[in-house]
Structures are given as C-alpha cells and as structure tokens.
C-alpha cells in the first residue's frame, strides 16, 4: 500500500512500475504453473475449465482461482492464436479482475487482456459482458480472441445490431458475451418495455469489462440512451423563428455566451421579437415562442456547419466532438435539432417523446462488478473514483515507450500558428518521417489541407465528410508510410492503429476488395431517385499508389480464383453492398472459417498480405530510422485526455516517435476559458508570427485547460447527482414492472389496488376527521359508482348501517371493492377463460409505461424549476429530491387507480374494433436519440380483445 501511496504522490511520473511490483508475486505464480499447464493435451486443458468451474461453484474465491485460470488462458491463447500474453498483459487482466480501470497504451493488446478476467469471472456461470464501442470491434474480438474461451469449453456470444430477440437471448445466455455499449443499453431499455416474458433478452448482470472506458463513462456521460416515440408534428414556428434569428444581429438583439453555450436576448431583441410575432409575452406557455427563438439563435451562433454537424442527403448529422465521427441517428434534444434543420432550410423531422431513457453512467453502475481499459484514464482518475468508485491503475508497457513529447510552441495569432505548422510538416516530411496532424474540426482540417496544397505537400485528409469517411481504412493504412502526411480530426483518436511503413493487412484487404466488390455487388439504382444528381458509379478502385508494389502474377491469379469461386457461390452482382462488405471483412479477419468460399478468400488475403508485408517491413525500417511518426497537435482539446489520445498514435510498441503541439492565444479554449491573465499576455506580445517561449505562459495555458476540465467535470458531477433521483425511481418502477410481467398471479396486487383506491375515494369524499353527522354519503356513492358500476347497490342507508365508524366504513368499502373485482374476474373468465390474467397484465404494463413516460417529462420540468430555489437559501438538489419523491408517489397512485378503474370497466368484446384506442402506447416507432439504432417497432402484444376504457 506504500507503493500506492507513493505513486499517488508522484502521479506525474507514474509509468506503471509500482503496479508491476504490486502484482509481481501473482504473475510469478502464474508463470510457475506454465510448465505444468503447457504439458497438458488439448482435452486435458479443456478439462481444467470444468475443474475450475466446480471449484468456483463450491464457493472458492475467484482470487484463489486466478493463477491457474490465467495460466490456462495463456496456454490456450498460445495454442489457438499463437499469441502468448506477456506478463504485463497478465497484470492488466488482474487489474481488471479487481474491478479497476487499467490504463494500457496503444498497441499493448487490450483485446487479448480482456479474455483473462472474462474467462475467470465466467467460471461462476453468471455470465460476463465484454463491451466495445462498435459492432465491428465486437464481432472482430468475438471471432478472434473469443476463440480462446471457446476452445476452453466456454460459450461465447456476440450481439450485433440487426439480431432478432431470439438470437440476442441466446447470445446473452452465453458465458461471455461481446456487445457494444449501445446495444446493451438499448436491450436493457427494451427489456423494460417488454410486454411478455418471452421478449426479455438480458440475464442478470454480473461482471462487465468495458473497452475504451473513458469514452463511454466520461465523454458519453452527458448523452443518455433514449428510446423515443413520435410526438406531434413539427410546427412552422421553427421556420419563422429561423427567419427572426437570421435578421437579428449579435450584441444588438442578443448576446452569446460561448462558455456556457447559451444565448440571451437583449431588451431590444425581446421588443423586436414581440413586435414581429405580434405577441404580448414571448414566454406565453401556449405559444412558447421563446424556446423557438432562442433555439433558432443558438442554431445560428453556436451550432456551425462542418464543425458541429454536417449535411448529408437533406439530413443534419451531428459530428461527435470527441471522436470527430458522424453520429448516425442521434438528434439534439428539446427542439434544437429542428431549429438547425430550419436554419439550413431542410425538411423538419417530427418531434419525439421519451419512452425510456438511462444514462451510461447509471446503466453501467448496475453491474455488481465493473472494470474497464483504455489508453487514457489517469488524468480523469479523480472523476472515476468519485462517481464510479473505480480506481485507475497504470499498467506498465511491455517495451519501454520512447516517444518524445516536445514542449509546446505558442503563437499570439492563429495565422502565425498555421504558418509554423506548415513549416514543421514540411521539415518532417523532408526527412521521410510520417506525420499525423490533429485538428479539432472538419473546417480546420480543410483549411490546413488548402495551406499544404499551396506548399506543395501531398497529404491525405481524414474527417467526417462522407467522401473522406469512405476512404478511412485506405488513409489509415498508409499513414505510417515513408513521408506520409495525414491531416485528421479527432477521428484519428481511439482505435486507429498507425503502423509504421504501412499496414500490410489493410492494404491486402483493399486489394481484395477492389477485385471482389465490382463482381458481386448489385448495382444500386432506384434508391437515389429523389436526388437530382446521379450517384457516382462505385468502382471500389483505390489509388494505385496506395499499394507498395504491383501484385505478382501468382498472387493475382490466386485472388482471381478466390473471387471467381465467390461469384459462383454468391451469384453475379447479387449482394447488397453491406452484405458484401461483411463477407469481405470476415474473410480478412482472424476468426476460424468453415465456409469454403470464405476460406479461399482468406488464403488469397493472407498471401497478398504476406507479399505486401515484405515491402512494408522494408519501408518500416526507413521510417524508424528517420524517427518514426511525428504527431502535430494544432489546438489543445477540452481535456488533456484527448490530447494524449492524439499523442498516443505515435510510439506504439516501443517504436520511436515524437509529438509537438502548436498553439495560439486566439484558440477557442484560451479565448473562452483563459481569463484575464491570457488576455493580458495577448496584449503584451506584439509579434504575430514568432513563437513565444515563457514559463509563465505555459503555466497559464495548462491552468486554462485544467479549468476547462474542472468546468466540465463539475457539470457532469451535478448531472450525476440529479440523475440519481431519476435513477432510483427508475429502478423502483422497473422492478415493479418486471414483477408484474413475470408474476403468475396478479390477483393479490389488484386486490390491494382495489382496497387502496377505495381508501382514497373514502378519504377524498369523507375525511377521517369529518364528524359523523356531516358525512356526505351521496357524494361518496356517486364517486364509488363512477369508478365501479358493479357497486350500484350502494345506498346511504346501507352505508350508514354498515359503517358505524370511519374505520368500519373503510373496512366495508374495501371488502366491497375486493368483491367487485372478484366478481368482474368471474364474469370475464366465464366468457373467455384465461383472458382476465392477460388483460390485467396488459393494463398494468401499459399504465406503467404511459405514466412513466409522463413522469419523465414532469421530472425534467421540476429539475429546471428547482434551479431557482437557491434564492430562498435552499439547496436545489434537496428540493429536487423532495419534489421528485412527491411526483413519484403521485405517479404510483395514479397507476394504481388507472389500473383498477380499467379493470372495473373492462368489457371483453369479440371484435377487434377499436384497436387503436386500447393502448395509449399505440405503436411507438422507436426513434433513438443516441447511437446507431434503426427505427423499429415496439409492438404491443396482440390482446385477445379490446378493452373499452373511457
């Protein structure tokens, strides 16, 4: 523990050596087992799994099983994949097993590390989830490293976007399941909207390994997963508001706060807007012009084309600020997206309403044991610790990292900075080093590209623009080649593996693709009818210069044969592009193949890759000699973590490399967060294009960046605290819902509903404190009968005789309520046996869903409203908790009353005539605010009959 303490003090220089020492003894015990284990035959090795499983079931602690389990996995990996996990990888596995975050550098083999703790924790039989960021990675990992646990006799499952619920269920039941974060989260939400037990796909959570954990738990923390249904049609108000916004002028009609990303109307702005719209109060809740106008101005000033979003086929697509990628299907909330659509003059899509939502934070916190890996976590360790109770441990690298991070070069003006960047690039380019330039937006990457063209430097651009995204693989494959220059947005962050000398496998795959695709893919037509311009014919041709050499005849023939057999098996030009891509990538991966055609393609692929590798290895030597990959940063990001990701592209697996950041005092981050100190310095320096070197300046810049980090951390923390309220309510409601869903008999619950509702009616009409003389029986009876027509025999006299006291009356009404339900039940059962149970379940579930949906909005509103309670010296969070609780109680009571009312009113009708009316849920088409989820219908189970409810 002293080591931990010391490393805590000297955090700056932590390279994981203390971790190495901490785990040295366990690593040694794994290594001791190696000779014994490696002597085993395949089947004996497999038997070890069963032995370990039995020990685990007997209650032996996982920790005591660890050395043997790791040794078994290491041996299996050696046999199946031909990779023997290094000691540092074992350490990584141990850190993960402890439920901590393992920080491992790029190229250290995180994928392989994950199977060590996954295997160990799967021994308990309770299942393990391995979470990746996209479908491709999930499949690759499952097919590649998943072979190891499969070889050892465990079942390994995989979830992909287009799977059916049956497939999902089966795969989730495996010992280890590979899945993306969004699929897992959406399956959880869908399970909680399910209307029958058969629809449930997930099993209880046990242990979860998250790949790129900082991306999911920090970057994505602010965007929840949402399943939404369509709401009302978009109104013209958006267009009107957009017109007003474009007519308004900054600082005359409105002011912009770039830091908080808000806009405020000025006095003049209010006056003019009210005049134009001819309204008295912009905030009138009936019209809500204020929100339209403010959103329109925000769209104008803060959401910029090619920075925050791009436009593709009449659609506004958000560009993720952390990854630089387009976020398919995600929309800004609260009408902002519509406002942007109006600004661009595009058709406005429907409003949507949230049916279910959960943040990744709270979702993953449901796992009893959670861990994750990433290349960059240590700068955010305080956040992981305070919110997730996850400790960050730095795992040492296998080979020492020798990248040189050179000190920043700071300019006063942006122009000076860009000139220097171009000089730096051309200098590096001349020596033959590969250069990667990181920019923060699509716009900037294009501008820099223009500058480089003027300077005559050939280069590639990697950004979210469709034409560039398409060529991503191609660009990355050659980014590490001699003298290559690549300008990238944050897209070249996580997961981009730039291999010095070029990526032979990528190239081989592209070559194969070039030959295969034109022959098997169905020509697309009809899809683009509405677009005026005819789509360019796809050739899949890649620039010849990409390939290090012309393919030898022998290899070309091999490829030709493989493609020929593929065409024969799959048919001439008959696959969709996606299908073909999928089969191609399957052929070019490392998973085992059964299919003969794929096998042939695989052979061809391997042969081509081998030939290319001869050349790329040669080139690699040259690049290494020149100094490896040089990373040029052009702006500091919102957190040091993202800067580090960019730097981390260089210096993988002990390669040489360097990085340098070029900054200017006019950069957004310093302009907005810099404060007076940096403003003062800006005034002090007169020279525009000479770099400024000053300790004080560097300190001030670091300070500014830290300020930004803290600022966003505080926001996330506050959100988390407020979200906790929603989360505990969601837990509660989902538990109740699940109980109703799986319960065999709902009778006791409904009897309770009946009794409680009778209590409510009694209390509302005759309070317990009302003297007996003034009891208003007429009113009470009217209300009771309105709820339940079966109780039409009630008369004031009857009640008078039955209820001598308030309690007596209460007991009597309860009994009557109960009896009425039982009576109803009998009537329905007589007509159609078994129907009542289904109806009850349906009513409970649909009422929970509908009222929960409304509750979500109510909570959102209250969260906004409590913000001003501080003026009465009250803590908004506490107020939110208290008011939220009251809303929750109201909702639960409302559910109960609605359910019992509908049951009393329930009349089975043979004909399905008013199908629509029966469910408030309707058939919500699922439109997902987050991640790539295709609209899909969440159907309501076919009810045997309609329910006539008023």
């Amino acid at each position, binding site marked *: 523990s002293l080591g931990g303490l010391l490393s805590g003090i000297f955090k700056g220089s932590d390279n994981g050596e203390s971790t190495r020492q901490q785990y040295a003894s366990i690593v040694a015990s794994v290594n001791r087992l190696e000779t014994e284990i490696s002597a085993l035959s395949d089947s004996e090795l497999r038997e070890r799994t069963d032995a370990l499983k039995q020990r685990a079931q007997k209650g032996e602690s996982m920790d005591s099983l660890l050395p043997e389990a790791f040794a078994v996995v290491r041996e299996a990996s050696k046999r199946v994949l031909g990779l023997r996990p290094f000691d540092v990888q074992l350490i990584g596995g141990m850190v993960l097993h402890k439920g901590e975050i393992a920080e491992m550098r790029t190229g250290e083999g995180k994928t392989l590390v994950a199977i060590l703790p996954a295997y160990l924790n799967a021994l308990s039989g309770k299942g393990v989830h391995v979470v990746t960021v996209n479908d491709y990675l999930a499949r690759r990992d499952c097919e590649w490293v998943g072979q190891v646990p499969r070889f050892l006799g465990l079942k390994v499952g995989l979830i992909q976007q287009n799977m059916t619920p049956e497939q999902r269920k089966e795969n989730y039941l495996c010992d280890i399941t590979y899945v993306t974060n969004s699929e897992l989260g959406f399956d959880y939400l869908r399970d909680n909207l399910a209307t029958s037990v058969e629809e449930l796909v997930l099993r209880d959570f046990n242990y979860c390994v998250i790949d790129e954990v900082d991306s999911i738990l920090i970057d994505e923390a602010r965007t929840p997963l949402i399943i939404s249904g369509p709401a009302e049609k978009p109104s013209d108000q958006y267009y009107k508001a957009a017109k007003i916004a474009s007519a308004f002028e900054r600082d005359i009609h409105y002011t912009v706060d770039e830091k*908080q990303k*808000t806009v405020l*109307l*000025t*006095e003049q702005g*209010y006056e003019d807007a*009210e005049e134009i719209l001819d309204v*008295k*109060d*912009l*905030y*009138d*809740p009936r019209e*809500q012009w*204020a*929100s339209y106008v*403010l959103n329109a101005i925000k769209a104008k000033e803060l959401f910029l084309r090619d920075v925050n979003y791009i436009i593709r086929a009449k659609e506004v697509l958000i560009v993720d600020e952390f990854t630089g990628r387009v976020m398919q299907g995600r929309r800004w909330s*609260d009408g902002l997206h519509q406002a942007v659509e109006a600004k661009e003059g595009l058709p406005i899509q429907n409003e949507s309403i949230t049916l279910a939502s959960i943040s990744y934070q709270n979702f993953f916190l449901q796992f009893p044991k959670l861990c994750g890996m990433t290349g960059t976590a240590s700068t955010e360790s305080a956040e992981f610790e305070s919110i997730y109770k996850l400790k960050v441990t730095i795992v040492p690298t296998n080979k020492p990292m020798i990248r040189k991070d050179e000190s920043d070069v700071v300019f006063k003006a942006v122009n000076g900075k860009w000139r220097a960047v171009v000089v730096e690039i051309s200098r590096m380019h001349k020596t033959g080093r590969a250069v990667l330039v990181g920019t923060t937006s699509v716009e900037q990457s294009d501008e820099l590209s223009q500058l480089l063209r003027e300077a005559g430097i050939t280069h590639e651009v990697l950004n979210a623009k469709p034409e560039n995204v398409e060529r991503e693989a191609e660009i990355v494959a050659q980014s590490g080649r001699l003298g290559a220059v690549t300008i990238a947005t944050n897209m070249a962050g996580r997961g981009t593996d730039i291999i010095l000398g070029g990526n032979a496998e990528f190239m081989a795959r592209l070559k194969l693709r070039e030959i295969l695709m034109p022959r098997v893919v169905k020509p697309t037509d009809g899809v683009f009818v509405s677009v005026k311009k005819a789509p360019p014919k796809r050739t899949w041709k890649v620039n010849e210069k990409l390939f290090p050499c012309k393919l030898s005849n022998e290899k070309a023939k091999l490829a030709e044969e493989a493609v020929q057999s593929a065409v024969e098996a799959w048919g001439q030009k008959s696959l969709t592009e996606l299908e073909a891509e999928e089969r191609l990538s399957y052929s070019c991966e490392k998973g085992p193949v059964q299919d003969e055609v794929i096998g042939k393609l695989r052979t061809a692929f391997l042969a081509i890759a081998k030939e290319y590798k001869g050349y790329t290895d040669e080139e690699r030597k040259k690049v290494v000699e020149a100094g490896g990959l040089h990373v040029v940063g052009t702006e500091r990001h919102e957190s040091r973590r993202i800067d580090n990701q960019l730097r981390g592209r260089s210096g993988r697996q002990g390669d040489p490399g360097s990085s340098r950041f070029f900054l200017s005092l006019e950069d957004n981050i310093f302009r907005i967060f810099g404060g*007076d100190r940096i403003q003062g310095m800006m005034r002090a320096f007169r020279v525009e294009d000479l770099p400024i070197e000053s300790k004080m300046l560097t300190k001030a810049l670091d300070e500014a960046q830290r300020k930004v980090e*803290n*600022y966003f951390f*505080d*926001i996330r*923390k506050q959100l988390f605290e407020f979200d906790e309220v929603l989360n*505990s309510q969601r*837990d*509660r409601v989902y538990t*109740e819902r699940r109980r109703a869903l799986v319960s065999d008999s709902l*009778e*006791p*619950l409904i009897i*309770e*509903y009946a009794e*409680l509702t009778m209590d409510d009616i009694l*209390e509302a009409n005759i309070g317990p404190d009302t003297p007996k003389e003034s009891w208003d029986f007429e009113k009470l009876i009217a209300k009771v009968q309105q709820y339940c027509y079966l109780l039409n025999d009630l008369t004031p006299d009857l009640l008078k005789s039955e209820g001598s006291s308030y309690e007596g009356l209460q007991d009597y009404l309860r009994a009557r309520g109960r009896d009425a339900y039982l009576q109803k039940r009998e009537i329905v059962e007589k007509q159609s046996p078994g129907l009542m149970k289904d109806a009850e379940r349906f009513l409970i579930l649909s009422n929970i869903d509908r009222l929960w949906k*409304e509750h979500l*909005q*109510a909570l*959102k*509103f*209250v969260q*906004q*409203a*409590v*913000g*001003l309670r501080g*003026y*009465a*010296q*009250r*803590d908004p969070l*506490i107020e939110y*908790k*208290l008011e939220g*609780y*009251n809303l929750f*109680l109201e909702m*639960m*009571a409302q559910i*109960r009353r609605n359910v019992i009312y509908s049951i009393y009113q329930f009349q089975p009708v043979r004909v399905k005539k008013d199908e629509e009316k029966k469910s408030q849920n309707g058939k919500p088409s699922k439109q997902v605010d987050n991640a790539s989820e295709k609209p899909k219908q969440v159907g309501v189970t076919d009810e045997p009959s309609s329910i006539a409810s008023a």
Partner: protein
Amino acid sequence: SSEASVFDPLGINPDETSGLSSIWESFVSLLSPSFESSSGNRRDKPSSGRGVAAAIEDSSIDFGDFFKGPLPGKFLKLLGFLALSRLGIYIPLGGVNREAFVGNLDQNSILSTLDTFSGGGIGRLGICSLGIVPFINAQIVFQLLAQVYPKLQDLQKKEGEAGRKKILQYTRYASVGFAIVQAIGQVFYLRPYVNDFSTEWVVSSVTLLTLGSVLTTYIGERISDLKLGNGTSLLIFTSIISYLPASFGRTTAEALQEGNYTGLGTIVVSFLLLVLGIVYVQEAERKIPLNYASRYTSKAGGLQKSAYLPFKVNSAGVMPIIFSTSSLALPATLARFTGISALKNVAFALTPGGSFYLPTNILLIAFFNYYYTFLQLDPDDVSEQLKRQGASIPLVRPGKSTALFIKTVLGRISVLGSAFLAVLAAGPAVVEQITHLTAFRGFAGTSVLILVGCATDTARKVQAEIISQKYKNIEFYELDKYDP
C-alpha cells in the same frame, strides 16, 4: 452565578452532555413537524401488513427508515465532530484569572453575543474560544467585497463550482488573518486578568487561539461534507444549544429565589411563542410564478405550481440584527477610549435599557435589512439569472422590466422582514421589563433564528436522504402476497 464559571478542563461538564442530548431532542422534535408539512395533505397510509403498492406509496417516515441506510453512521460522525469542536473550548488558555474575567464579560453586550456564537468559548477562555467567528467574519467581508470588486463577483457567479471553490479558499486565508487579529485583540483585552503578561505568553496564546480557530473551521468543513447541513451553521447551532440549559437554569434559579413564578411562566411561554413565530416566518416565502422557455409545460398541468421564484420574507437572516447591535455598541467603545462626556451620554442612551435604545435599534435593523436584502438579491442579477435559466415572469418582459418588478417585490418584502426582525430584537427586552427577570441568553431572537434555520435545513436534508433510501427499502416490506 458560580455554576457557569466552574472550571472543567476535561469537558466532563454536565452542560456538555446535556447540550448534546438536547441537540438530539431538538432534532427529533424539529424533524417530526417538518415531515408532516412536506407530506402535505396526503394522508399517510398505514403500512403494517399491507402489500407492495401500499409500501411504495407510504410516505410516512419512521425511525425504522432512519436506521436502514447510512444515516446513523453519518449522524455519529456529525456528533463526533461537534463533540470535538466543543472539546477545544474546554482546554484552557493558561495564565488567566478566569473568575475576574467572567464577571466582566456579563456586562459587555457584544462580547456576550460573540460568546454565544462561539459556544461560551470566550467566557471559558479555551483555545478554541474564537470558534467559527473569524470564518464567519471572513465570509461576510468577502460577500461585501464582491459588491466592490466585480472580479470576485464573476468568480462567484459565473465560474461555477470552481469559482466558488476559489472563493472558499480565499475565505479560508482571510479567516486565518481574522483569527490572528481577533486573537491579538482578545489577548490584550485579557491583559488585566493575566498573571504574567510577557511576550512569550502573548505569542503562544495568539498562536494557540489562531490554531483553535483554524481547527474549528476545518471541522466545520468536514461537517458540510457530510451533507447534513451547513457546517458553520451547525457549529453555531451547537454552541447556542450548549449554552441554553445553563442559562435557562440561571433564569429559573433567579425566578425561584425571588418567587417570581408568573415571570418565569411568561418567559417560557413567550419563548415558545417566539420559536413558533420564527418557524412560521422563516418558512414564509413570496412565490413569483414563472414561465419557462421549454416545451411540454402546458401539457403537464399541475406542474406549473413548482415553477416559481421564491423570496424569503426574512432573506437577510440574522445579519441586520448583528450589524445593528455592533453599531449601537460603537458609541460606548468610543466613549471609553476618548472619555468625551457627550459621547458617554449618547452611549448611555443607546445601551440596552436606555431611552433611545429601542427606536434606534429598530431603525438600524430596518436600514440594514433593506440594504442587506438588496445586497444578497440584486434585482438586476436575479433578472439576468432568470434569463439564463430561460424563465420569465408572466407578462413582464425579461431584462429591465423584470429587474424593476423584482425590486418592488423585494422592497415590500423587506418591510415585512424588518418588522419581524424588530420584534425579535425588541422581544427579550420587553419580556424582561414585564417579568423583571433576566432573560436567558438563548432567548435572544438571533439565537433562535439560527437554531430554527439550521434545524429546518438539516431536517430537509435528512428527509431527502431517507427518501433516497426508501426507493430501495421497499424490498424489505412484506412481499408474501406475491407468492400465494
């Protein structure tokens, strides 16, 4: 009055234990009414022997709920911290003739107010005798400075959490400064009662007193971290509570001695009335309804009632009383230093019981209340904040008109608030006159105001905590009904 001056270095003073237990009792008693009020008109449903639905909707809070979560542990910690803060008061500063000093203390009104806040530390001359007072002073000073230096204000309002942390850090530094100054002042004030007034004694005493204050400030922050209420207020709360029994005992003894039973009765009754009145006014708010620039508000009808801008009737708290008391004591202090006879007369008229004391005090309270209300709730600033939150007062345009509207509302409220504070300030004196008894020290309106404010705050926090647990605790209720 030998009882109060008993020297008790180990803190085994009966005051101490009774102080703590009375905190407990007052908590318990204060918790129960506020729970009822928050559950509103909804009657609590009996939960015994009922099913889950009843359990979920059961909003009553019993002691079972209290003990189910982390709360008991938190309360133990809180009590531990408070006990620790008290302990420092009983560790004495060496070399002072205590009895002579205490005798003098009773005649000085500012010192005795301060003494109440620091929990009798000044009277006992413990090393923590400065208590949380320097920190409070620093806070007040920073609040005032923020008005003068816009940069500070920006830090407080625009930089969010980070800015507030920075201000807190500055406040801490300043509190050390205040502690040193106050310690020096106190040490010299003690001069007549010190046996051996040497430089070493001065230096060591000042250091000890400063450290004591820093320690108390530190404890206060730790208490805030427990999220059971503001640490500073809780410390003052304890101090006042710890004083109540002894002081009350003294008044009772006096009454019994003189056989003035009606007087005693009147005091007790008026004290209770005072507490009730303060609870009532403390919770009183002017709620200005708001519209938000967000969708869906119109559909969720009943929700509109939670969208309001609250202004407390007494938003300035005790500050006006403290300011006015300090100002009233100024002439006396000046008179003592200068010896001008005119000043002496003025001072005499302004001491409690003097002819001009009450009217001047009330006037000053009204002035400071008005001033302080607007200092805390600057209408322009509130209007700006409303704009940022996307809120607007119906039919009042955001911006200047809103600021004007708020100014009018606040102006009216401050009249009410001033009247209330004046009653508080004058109350004890009036009661004293009627009963011819020395009212006990905790009787002062300021103390009760702090007690009530602190207790309701803590009660809400505890309630919120219990509610958070309730979502989970429902599992513990009888679930047999589901498995027939």
